[in-house]
């Protein structure tokens, strides 16, 4: 079946421009995560949605970063007034799981959007 898709795959923005990155999770997945991955580093948590509710945005680095998931499916990560330090790969992941702990919990990742701010 279809996995998590992200668009665009590559984005070049001039410093100060606004960008919008899209994530299409696996159909029916309740949970959606955004991560930021700098070169040579592991993914770092940005924000989490459970359906349309943004339950955790503690990882967003500044108020220039904004994420939404208005209908509980597609999500958009928006970065306003981009800066060079925003250059990274932005990963989206979805999962069926929510609620109590248990085995078999996994996140399905998309291929990411590589953002380069010049």
């Amino acid at each position, binding site marked *: 079946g279809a996995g998590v898709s992200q668009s665009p795959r590559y984005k070049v923005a001039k410093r100060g421009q606004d960008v919008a990155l899209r994530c299409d999770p696996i159909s029916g997945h309740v949970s959606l995560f955004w991560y930021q991955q700098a070169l040579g580093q592991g*993914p770092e948590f940005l924000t989490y949605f*459970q359906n349309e509710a943004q*339950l955790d945005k503690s990882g967003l680095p500044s108020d220039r970063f904004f994420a939404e998931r208005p209908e509980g499916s597609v999500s958009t990560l928006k970065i306003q007034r981009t800066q060079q330090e925003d250059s990274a790969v932005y990963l*989206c992941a979805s999962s069926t*799981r929510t609620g109590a702990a248990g085995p078999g*919990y996994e996140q*399905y990742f998309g291929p990411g959007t590589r953002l380069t701010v010049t």
Partner: protein
Amino acid sequence: LAKTTQPISMDSYEGQEVNITCSHNNIATNDYITWYQQFPSQGPRFIIQGYKTKVTNEVASLFIPADRKSSTLSLPRVSLSDTAVYYCLVGDIPSGGYQKVTFGTGTKLQVIP
């Protein structure tokens, strides 16, 4: 969140078994141990998850000692296509409903022909 420590890189020849050990001294009672694999230009992919003892699937085995302060991912007979970064994660899923995990820098495995 429990912090994990893994080797930065490892090399192995094709056909060998590779064992990657992860330390997580501060693991909590409810924490699960999960390993992900990431190829260049791709998102991470779930490999295996366990709580204690040994777990095996079609891809790998995960060994967890009784004290759970470490875990070892075992890849049998690696091939060139196993060249990737491997991340050890520790976390739980509180009743609030999501697994907030820290990936760390991972172990870069290079398989040599």
